[in-house]
């Protein structure tokens, strides 16, 4: 709406969105690497982390990028050259595609798809192909083991991820991520509309299943069997060096951010604040459009991304906190965990949600 009001041409908005997508995906990954991987972990492990590059080590990531960019791009002799080189791009593409449907404000969304969440879960599986490509094409046994482990794990944890989302979709009555945010802003819980209805309250089981599955999708501890640096050296990334390794690395952190964005949309109310708060603050009042649609204040296109960032950082904090605390599962244990615990639990959650939806 806001963009339409200023009348941009289609190609202008496209370029604008393209740059914005880069900023959202890569720009958010940088701070999260610095805050969590460099600093928070260091404090957890009673050390300081990087302190030399820039004030308080804040430029460390730039130094790392510069270092990686300079390094030789080694391709192993027996590797399948094209597949080996293409694999990191495939992984990164899945990250960018994920970011497309996440709404950051009433109009601040790259593509407002009606099957938004469905699309997001579908494209998140593309990274499996990239990882399998990397594992196979490296022509290294460690990579192959890592790639196959990753494929098995990602496919197993795709199911709980989808099933956890189904509960939210039932409650919101839509696959569109904007509608899901709408439902949480407008909703009421036990007749109280003071805090809206963030689905984390009613879908607490779904939220935990979603976060666990996200942890597994990101192949982070305790589900980091595919990388398992103490046994598989670095899994499917073993043979990568320089910039291609960096792409895997950035991809991992960017995907963590995007999944956290998605979780905050699905469970924490996304970019919105409760309707009661909107009514209380003068500039944020909502209007009812001619066709009965709710039109939110334009200010949310600015406030929304900030709220989303705050929620994202809160959720990624949990992701990295777990990552640096737990030991890892064995391959068969984590498969059992997915199939015997998470999936039945998610199905029960869906059944209960469905029944309650009909009752209330």
């Amino acid at each position, binding site marked *: 709406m806001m963009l339409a009001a200023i009348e941009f041409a289609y190609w202008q908005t496209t370029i604008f969105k393209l740059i914005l997508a880069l900023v959202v995906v890569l720009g958010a990954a940088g701070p999260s690497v610095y805050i969590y991987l460099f600093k928070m972990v260091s404090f*957890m*492990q*009673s*050390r300081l982390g990087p302190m030399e590059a820039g004030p308080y080590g804040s430029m460390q990531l730039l130094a790392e990028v510069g270092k990686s960019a300079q390094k030789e791009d080694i391709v192993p002799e*027996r590797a399948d050259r094209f597949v080996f080189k293409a694999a990191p791009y495939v992984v990164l593409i899945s990250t960018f595609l994920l970011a497309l449907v996440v709404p950051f404000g009433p109009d601040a969304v790259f593509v407002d798809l009606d099957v938004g969440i469905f699309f997001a879960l579908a494209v998140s599986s593309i990274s499996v192909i990239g990882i399998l490509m990397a594992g196979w094409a490296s*022509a290294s*046994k*460690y990579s192959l*083991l890592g790639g196959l482990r990753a494929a098995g794990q990602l496919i197993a944890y795709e199911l709980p991820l989808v099933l956890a989302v189904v509960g939210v979709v039932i409650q919101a009555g839509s696959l569109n991520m904007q509608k899901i945010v709408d439902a949480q802003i407008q909703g009421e819980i036990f007749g109280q509309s003071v805090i809206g209805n963030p689905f984390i309250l009613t879908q607490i089981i779904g939220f935990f299943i979603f976060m666990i599955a996200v942890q597994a999708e990101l192949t982070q*501890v*305790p589900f*980091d*069997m595919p990388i*398992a*640096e*103490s*046994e*598989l*050296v670095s899994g499917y990334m073993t043979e990568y060096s320089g910039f291609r390794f960096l792409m895997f690395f950035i991809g991992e952190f960017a995907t963590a951010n995007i999944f956290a964005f998605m979780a905050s949309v699905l469970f924490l109310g996304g970019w919105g604040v409760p309707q009661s708060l909107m009514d209380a603050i003068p500039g944020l009042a909502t209007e009812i459009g001619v066709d009965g649609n709710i039109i939110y204040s334009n200010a949310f296109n600015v406030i929304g991304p900030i709220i989303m960032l705050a929620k994202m950082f809160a959720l990624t904090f949990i992701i990295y906190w777990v990552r*640096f*605390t*737990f*030991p*890892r*599962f*064995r*391959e*068969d*244990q984590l498969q059992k965990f997915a199939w015997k615990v998470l999936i039945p639990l998610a199905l029960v959650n869906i059944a209960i949600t469905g029944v309650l939806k009909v009752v209330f």
Partner: protein
Amino acid sequence: MTAINDRRQLAYAAAQATDARVNIELEAEGMTLNIGPQHPATHGTLRIIVRLDGEQVIEADPVMGYMHRGYEKLTEVRTYPQVTTLINRIDWVSSFANEVPFILAAEKLMEVEAPPRAQWIRTILFELGRIANVSMFLGDMGVQLGAVTPMFYALRDREFILNQIEAATGGRFHPNFDRIGGLKDDLPAGWIEDTRLALDKMEYFCQQVEDLVIGNEIFEQRTRGIGIIPADVGLSYGLSGANIRASGVDWDLRRDNPVGLAWDQVDWRVWTHPDGDSFARYWVRLQEVRESCHIVRQLLDGLPSGPIMAKVPRVVKVPEGEAYVACENPLGQMGYYLVSQGGLTPFRVKVRTASFSNMSITPWLLKGTYVADVITILASLYFILGDLDR
């Protein structure tokens, strides 16, 4: 034009051959995986050739000797005081514990006995070495399981112990402090109080490890029932130290083979665990660190006064004869078989190191396990590469 075609054909043929090689390797029953000699889990240069069926190990074959430094042979051209410098480097994490059995063997042949104060200080440094060594294990096991944080806690708190060793001996890792007939120096002033503080830190670390690692369900899942060594199998492979005590064998050389050090003067107990799995080995070692802290505290309280050096001639010549002295090294039984022909140098020294015997069980133990468990089992057996290859 033909040249280009030829080159293309050659490249194609080469690619085909490569594919065929890879396929043959994959289709043959099992895949051979070389763990090491350069691998993050081997702490150095151990190589294990593993034949895999999927992720299950059919056959494991450890190849040792990548770090062989010939210390047994080198001792034959070193005088007795020089030998301690060498054997310091066998198990480099608790060096002082390597010196003691050798010095005791030489003293046995010379019929010299160190004065009580020297014996007590030897015991204190021995136990501090054990704490420094085993706390490394307590952290490292976490790393092998994917939890990096316990390792940093171990490195942080071990530093206090290393500082104390440095304050007393001048060397953090390689003290070279033990002499035939006693010790090089007495303890510096204020050392006893500082050591008590360092032990406080270490006991706190043990509590942290218990909360963070032992209390973790994933850790239990990864270690309970994994790599079980029955007591009789362990004994037949010559396992010693915490590895055999974790199988329920109540055997500790500190108690069962008194060599003159002060262990029989203090009140302590030997910890055993009936299970014999990786968890039991971890648990026993954790209790041993606590017990060592307990031992050192008592030794500090009752440290006798007196000289630290017996009367020994300036040029050490060990009379003709043979002696074997074994001590309970942090890794297990470590013994020196010393043969002297009355000269300035030993005629032959045979070192019995714990890691070598502990590793010998791996072909038996790793059969049928998963690749992921290979790493945790190796970590729980706890070997030091220098101790393995000498």
